[in-house]
Structures are given as structure tokens and as C-alpha cells.
């Protein structure tokens, strides 16, 4: 270790002056993932060859993950579809760590979803845990107190041996971090599909709340202000490729081994949250930034380029966990649980007193300068001297070729008609199908997963799994709060990426309104295969456009998100890519979360109404997949006007107390919604569907399992019946009484489809809850 230090002192350090003196020196730009034209551009920007440290910074900041070089040209579409009306509640939009939305009463919320797919395959527990930790820091960096998390998980086939390795690890990692840090987990998704074999998707969402005045931005302003790094010590985490440089620089005293995975320390992050909130409330922070991907390279270059001057950083002041780290590696390290703040000299003592109170290590690394360069020094020698914008924002932009795959037509033509895929004929077959469907991997109870997550901590959870949306209180005085739902459907998106993205959006929108909340804003995580495949790039471009158009139609802006590319297990292009999987989060607001609508009925004797109309739509359906392993045709049609109307009515029902329960219809159709609602509180139902069959011209199988959109089931108390139906009629929303919640005293509760078949709740429940424990213990 001291050998390494003496290595630097022996003059091996690749300083700026050395770079100027040795322009011909060969540099491992290719090993760092740079293309030759990108390397040339760096030389052009600097007017010399970069130092090793500079090369490290550019290479990581210009990577796909940090620079969005393949996706940028498409993401612009969100801006094109942002209307003035959509901007009204948007306080901070795309471009910051996370978007900020005004929810009234001087409160704002910030939320974002991010992926941690690859690390979760390599080491499921730590990969998932650090994914949760990372998104929480993004939310903290906005000045907010994190108030809830959600997780959207996709795994390979449920019975594949590797799934048995990945699932328990990921689930306990999400829980291990979230539980220990004390954030309620209020919802998410669990999906199984062979396309995610070897490439699971782990997307984590965090939402935070703050007063308007507390919104913080990541910028370094004010010459003379100090740059402070605080939190965990810096180790060799996640520096992977950059070790190439380290070994070049220190030939004879090679650095010690670098960790293959990052380990999270949720306790450190919990303390960091409380420490940050103390700092914010004492107004001791001018600008703040989390350290995530690309660590100090990202934080310093982003803070500096968003500021009004330059920045000087003494890298040797970074507290290290591993003293053998080289300057390049320190710049690159992705050690978790660290933050960077800009603090005035007048406040620094007070700042350090707060960090000391929380036992959080802090180091003043440098200051904001009146130049316009980011300068990094190592024991007094300059190793980085760059215009920060060129690192943080002026990365390469690719217009990657994209083309609709030739196979798309055949896929869409493969419609799951009755001739092609056998359907149940008799009532007895329908009953058996219902039991199989509720036990199928994607429709069965998620309790095995969600029972490992604390949903009660912080005392503000008004709804959580298995309800349609998670609902948490923001303000204890008024009861003001937010609802969130996170949804995606890769099969729909595979059949038609544009519609698929919109289907994810409308489902999340519907879930939030079913809970009684007014949808306000959107975040997204776009998980796709390799952008170098034109077919994948087409899927991506289509999905982004679909989403942008959908957001405009519904009047809800995208406030931020994340793109995850290269999700695939081989190099077979489209065929080895995961299903294109846009995961969409919608946030809604409730003036009083106690008015939220739960998804199950609690009392007998309430009338059940089906809202919306049913068509025969089985393309990409859970039925086609679970029963026949079939994926083809077109996904269900999207009707934004119908979704908006349904949403409006559901929100009004909650406000006026017209319904006691509401459950949206999505995967698995009406049958699944009915089953979930009866099982929620153990109150059965008697259902009659003849009128529906007649009105919509469908058969019972279609009525039960079709996945038509813009539908929900509600439970209406008898005394509200007239007001409720009058409102639906006045608003022009199709509504039909299809049954009654039912609990005969002294009798076992049942779900009864009148005249056709009947299932005891105990039997339904056994089928529904048995699947995950059977596979994962």
C-alpha cells in the first residue's frame, strides 16, 4: 500500500504536464470502451492527450449508462409532447436527479425509477440491495425525505433452476435494504418469462416529499464555496475496467484486488438520510448530489457544469477504505452510501457538527473556483483539468439505425383465435381454468415476496400490496398524500412496442385512479436489449413515442426515468434480447389519504358494478401464455379518452364516498379481479354475467379472461346506488351491475358465477397462494 503511494511520489503519476510532454503515449481507450473517434474527440477538446484520470472520467461518463448516447435522440420526444397544461404542477422536470411535482399545500414530491439489472444477476442479494440504495440517494439529493419504495421484478421461467437462485436473493436484497433503512415498500411487480433468463430486470422506485422551499438542485455555485464529500469511505467498488489504467500506471506495484460486486450498507444510508435532513433543515447546503454510477467523476463534473464557475478538488483528501487505490480508481469508484455537498465557508463548521452528530465521515475536498475548469489534484499535482460540461453533458450522441423487424408481421398475424387455441367448453372446464389461472406464475399471489417487505414503517401507509396502488401520507395535518403504481407488460410490448408502452401507462394510471388518487406525473424505466440491433432500437423508439403520445393524451408529464440497454444473454440480436419492457410509474395525489379506495370488498350485500366494456382481446394475454405458451396477435387496444373518463369517475367516487372498493381489470381479466377482491378480506361474491354477455356480444370465457382496457369493478353501498348510477349515466360511462358481495352467515364464502359454477374461497386461496412457496420455499 505504501509502495503504491511511493509509486506516485516516484513520479509515475500521469499528470497534465506529463500528458503534455508525452503526446505519443499509447492509451488503453479501447479497453475502457471508447471508440477511436470518441478518443480523438477527447484529444480535440483538451488540445492534448488526456491523462489517465481524465481518460477514466470521459470513458465512464460517455458510456451508454451515463451518457444515454443511443437513447438521447429518442428521449427528446418527451419534450416535444410536453404541453403547457402538463407543466403546471411540474416544479423540476427531466434532467435533474429526479423530477419534482407540486402536490399542493406547499408540499412537493419527487420520484424516480431506476434499474439494477446486471448486478442483480451476478449477485442477486447485493445487486438488488444496492439498486434500492441508489435510487433512494437520488431522491435525497433533491432535498426530500424518502417516504416509500417500490420494486418491479422480472425473472426467467419460474421452474428454471437459476430462477431459484435469483428470486430469493433479489427479494431478500430489496427487503434487506428497504427494511433496514426504514422505508415502507408499497408495491411493485413480479413477472416470470423465459426471456429474462440470465438477465433479470430489477427496477426500484423511490418517492420522497419536501416543502417547496426545500427543493435542492445539484449545482456548485459561489466562488469560494466548499466541496464536501460525506458518507461511507471510498473503496475499489465497481471500478472494473478502470483497473486497466491503474495497472498501466503502477506497473511494479500492482493494486490489490478489486471487488467484483458492491456491498450495500443500509445502516450507513439510514444515518445519511437523517444527517442530510438535518443539514437541509438547518439550511447548510447550497448544492447537493448523490454518488451513484461513475462516482466522483459524475458528481464533480455534474455539480461543476451546473454551477457558475470551476471547481478544484484535492483527490488525496478522499477518505479511503482501501489505501491502495489510484487516483483514477478513486474518481471511478462506485462505493455506495456517499453524497457530495457544496457548502459556504461560513456554514462549514455547522455542517461538520451535523455530520459528527450522526457519526458520518466528511471531508472537505476542495472549492468552487472562478475559473471554468474542473481541476483535480493528487498530492498537489494536477491530474485532471477539463471543461466539466464536456465530461457531463457533451458526450457522443448516436443516431443508431432502427428498423421494424421482419418477423413483426408474422408475430402480429398469429392471432389467438378460437380455432387456433382451444378454449374451455363447459362450465366445469371454465371452473378448472379459473383455478389454474389464479395459480399461474404471473397471476398467483405475490405474498411470498411482499411479506418479506416492511409496509408499515413510518406509519403513513394507507394502501400497499396487494391493492392496486400504494398510498402514503405526506402531511399528517391535512392527510395529503400520494398514490403510486408501477406497471409494465413485456409481452404486449413485444407484439407492438408503441401500444405496449401505452398499455403500461394506462394500467398504472388506472391503478392510481382506482385507489382514488388524481394522476399527476410519470416516471419510466426502459429495459431493452442491445441498441446495436436495429430491431431492438426500433422497439425502443416505438415505445418512447408511444409513451410520449400517451402522456400527452392523459395530461401527465414524464418527470424522469432511466434507460437500461444491453439486456440480453447472447449475441443473437433481437432473439437473445429480453422482451422489450418499458416499466411505467404513475404518481397521483389524494387530498386526504383516508379517502383512498381499497381493492377488496369488506362487507356483504354491496352491489358490484363492472365499469367499461369488454371485447375479445387475447393477444399477449395471460391466458394465451399460461395455457398455451402462445404469444401473438395484437395487444388490447388503448383508448385514452375511455381511460381518462374511467379515471375521473373513480376519483370522484372516492371523493364523494360512492364506492367502498374498486379494482382495476388487467392481466387475467375480470376473473382475476374478482378472485383478488374476494380473497382480500374473505368476503365472497355472487356474480351474474348474462346481461354483460348480451350487451358486449361476448361469451362467458371472453367476459372472464379477456384483457380489454379501461375497465374496473367497484363495490357500491346500497345507499349510494342511485347517486352512483346517475353519475355514471351523466358522464357516459358504461356501467353494469354484475353481482353482489356475499357472506351467508354460517356458510363458507364462495365466488359464485350464477348458473355456471361456484368455487369456495378456501379452494381459491389455496390455489392462489400455493405457487410461489412451492417453488421458492
Amino acid at each position, binding site marked *: 500500500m505504501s509502495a503504491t503511494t511511493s509509486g506516485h511520489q516516484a513520479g509515475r503519476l500521469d499528470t497534465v504536464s506529463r500528458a503534455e510532454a508525452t503526446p505519443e503515449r499509447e492509451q488503453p481507450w479501447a479497453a475502457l470502451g471508447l471508440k477511436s473517434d470518441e478518443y480523438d474527440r477527447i484529444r480535440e477538446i483538451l488540445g492534448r492527450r488526456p491523462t489517465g484520470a481524465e481518460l477514466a472520467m470521459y470513458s465512464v461518463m460517455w458510456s451508454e449508462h451515463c451518457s444515454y448516447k443511443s437513447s438521447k435522440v429518442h428521449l427528446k420526444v418527451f419534450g416535444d409532447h410536453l404541453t403547457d397544461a402538463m407543466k403546471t404542477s411540474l416544479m423540476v422536470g427531466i434532467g435533474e436527479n429526479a423530477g419534482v411535482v407540486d402536490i399542493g399545500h406547499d408540499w412537493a414530491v419527487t420520484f424516480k425509477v431506476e434499474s439494477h439489472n446486471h448486478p442483480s444477476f451476478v449477485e442477486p442479494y447485493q445487486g438488488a440491495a444496492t439498486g434500492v440504495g441508489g435510487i433512494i440517494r437520488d431522491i435525497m439529493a433533491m432535498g426530500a425525505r424518502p417516504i416509500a419504495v417500490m420494486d418491479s421484478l422480472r425473472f426467467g421461467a419460474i421452474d428454471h433452476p437459476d430462477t431459484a437462485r435469483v428470486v430469493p436473493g433479489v427479494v431478500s436484497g430489496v427487503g434487506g435494504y428497504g427494511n433496514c433503512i426504514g422505508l415502507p415498500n408499497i408495491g411493485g411487480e413480479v413477472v416470470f418469462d423465459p426471456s429474462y433468463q440470465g438477465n433479470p430486470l430489477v427496477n426500484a422506485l423511490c418517492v420522497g416529499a419536501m416543502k417547496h422551499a426545500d427543493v435542492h438542485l445539484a449545482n456548485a455555485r459561489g466562488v469560494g464555496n466548499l466541496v464536501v464529500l460525506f458518507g461511507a469511505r471510498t473503496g475499489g467498488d465497481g471500478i472494473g475496467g478502470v483497473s486497466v489504467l491503474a495497472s498501466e500506471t503502477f506497473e511494479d506495484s500492482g493494486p490489490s484486488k478489486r*471487488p467484483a*460486486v458492491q*456491498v450495500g450498507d443500509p*445502516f450507513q444510508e439510514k444515518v445519511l438520510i437523517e444527517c442530510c435532513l438535518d443539514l437541509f433543515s438547518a439550511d447548510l447546503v447550497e448544492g447537493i448530489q448523490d454518488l451513484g454510477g461513475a462516482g466522483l467523476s459524475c458528481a464533480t463534473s455534474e455539480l461543476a457544469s451546473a454551477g457558475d464557475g470551476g471547481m478544484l478538488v484535492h483527490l488525496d483528501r478522499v477518505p479511503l*477504505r482501501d489505501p491502495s487505490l489510484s487516483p483514477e480508481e478513486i474518481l471511478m469508484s462506485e462505493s455506495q452510501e456517499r453524497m457530495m455537498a457544496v457548502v459556504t465557508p461560513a456554514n462549514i463548521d455547522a455542517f461538520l457538527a451535523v455530520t459528527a452528530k450522526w457519526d458520518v465521515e466528511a471531508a472537505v475536498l476542495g472549492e468552487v473556483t472562478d475559473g471554468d475548469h474542473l481541476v483535480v489534484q493528487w498530492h498537489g499535482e494536477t491530474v485532471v483539468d477539463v471543461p466539466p460540461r464536456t465530461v457531463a453533458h457533451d458526450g457522443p450522441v448516436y443516431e443508431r439505425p432502427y428498423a421494424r423487424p421482419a418477423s413483426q408481421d408474422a408475430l402480429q398475424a398469429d392471432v389467438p383465435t378460437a380455432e387456433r387455441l382451444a378454449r374451455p367448453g363447459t362450465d366445469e372446464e371454465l371452473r378448472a381454468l379459473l383455478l389454474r389461472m389464479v395459480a399461474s406464475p404471473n397471476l398467483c399471489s405475490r405474498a411470498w415476496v411482499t411479506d418479506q417487505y416492511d409496509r408499515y414503517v413510518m406509519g403513513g401507509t394507507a394502501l400497499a400490496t396487494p391493492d392496486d396502488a400504494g398510498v402514503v401520507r405526506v402531511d399528517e395535518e391535512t392527510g395529503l398524500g400520494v398514490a403510486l403504481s408501477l406497471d409494465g407488460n413485456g409481452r404486449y410490448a413485444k407484439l407492438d412496442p408503441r401500444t405496449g408502452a401505452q398499455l403500461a401507462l394506462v394500467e398504472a394510471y388506472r391503478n392510481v385512479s382506482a385507489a382514488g388518487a388524481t394522476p399527476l406525473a410519470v416516471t419510466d424505466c426502459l429495459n431493452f436489449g442491445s441498441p446495436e440491433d436495429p430491431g431492438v432500437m426500433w422497439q425502443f423508439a416505438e415505445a418512447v413515442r408511444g409513451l410520449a403520445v400517451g402522456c400527452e393524451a392523459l395530461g401527465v408529464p414524464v418527470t424522469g426515468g432511466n434507460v437500461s440497454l444491453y439486456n440480453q444473454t447472447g449475441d443473437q440480436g433481437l432473439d437473445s434480447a429480453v422482451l422489450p419492457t418499458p416499466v411505467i410509474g404513475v404518481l397521483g395525489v389524494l387530498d386526504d389519504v383516508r379517502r383512498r379506495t381499497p381493492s377488496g370488498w369488506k362487507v356483504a350485500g354491496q352491489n358490484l358494478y363492472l365499469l367499461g366494456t369488454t371485447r375479445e382481446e387475447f393477444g399477449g394475454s395471460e391466458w394465451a401464455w399460461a395455457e398455451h405458451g402462445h404469444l401473438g396477435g395484437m395487444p388490447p387496444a388503448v383508448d385514452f379518452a375511455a381511460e381518462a373518463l374511467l379515471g375521473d369517475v373513480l376519483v370522484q367516487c372516492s371523493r364523494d364516498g360512492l364506492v367502498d372498493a374498486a379494482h382495476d381489470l388487467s392481466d387475467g381479466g375480470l376473473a382475476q379481479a374478482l378472485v383478488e377482491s374476494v380473497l382480500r378480506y374473505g368476503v365472497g361474491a355472487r356474480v351474474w354475467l348474462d346481461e354483460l354477455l348480451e350487451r358486449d356480444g361476448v361469451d362467458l370465457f371472453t367476459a372472464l379472461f379477456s384483457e380489454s382496457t379501461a375497465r374496473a369493478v367497484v363495490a357500491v353501498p346500497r345507499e349510494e346506488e342511485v347517486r352512483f348510477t346517475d353519475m355514471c349515466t351523466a358522464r357516459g360511462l358504461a356501467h353494469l351491475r354484475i353481482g353482489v358481495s356475499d357472506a351467508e352467515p354460517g356458510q363458507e364464502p364462495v365466488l359464485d358465477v350464477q348458473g355456471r359454477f361456484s368455487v369456495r374461497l378456501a379452494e381459491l386461496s389455496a390455489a392462489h397462494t400455493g405457487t410461489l412457496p412451492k417453488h421458492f420455499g
Partner: protein
Amino acid sequence: MGRVVIDVMPKPEILDPQGKAVVGALPRLGFDAFTGVRQGKRFELEVAGEVTPEVLAQARAAAETLLSNPVIEDVVSVRDAGAGEVASA
């Protein structure tokens, strides 16, 4: 009846939050001699008979697969408890 002892430690380069918590607590209790702590696991496996070379081989294999996570942990030793404490892996 024999016994095999297996020691597993977090890899030195990997963050060890548990050891970190302990090293922070020690000085507060007046134990000021220690500059670092790492916390690992110790398994004691019982066998009905003697600890034969076959048993030790099984123990070694179990240590590498089930009892440690090679991504973040090292198997430090696998040994016959009866044969005295001799480091062997």
C-alpha cells in the same frame, strides 16, 4: 463422533458493514487496541463416525458451494476439529 470446522470470511476488498459496526463500537466500550474488524462465519459440522478424507472433501465442497458465496466471501479454512486447529485451505 467427529466434527469439521469451516471458517468463511468476507473477501478483504469487499465492504464489511458488520465489521465496520463492531470496530465503531469497540472504542466506545473502552477497547482501543483494534484498528479494524472483519466479521465472518464459523460452521461446525458433525459427522456420525470419524472425519475421514472423504468427509473432509465433502466439507470442502460444501464450503465452496453452500456455505460461502464465492463472489463476496473466501473459505478460510476447512479442518477436522479433532485434529487440532490447523489451517488447511
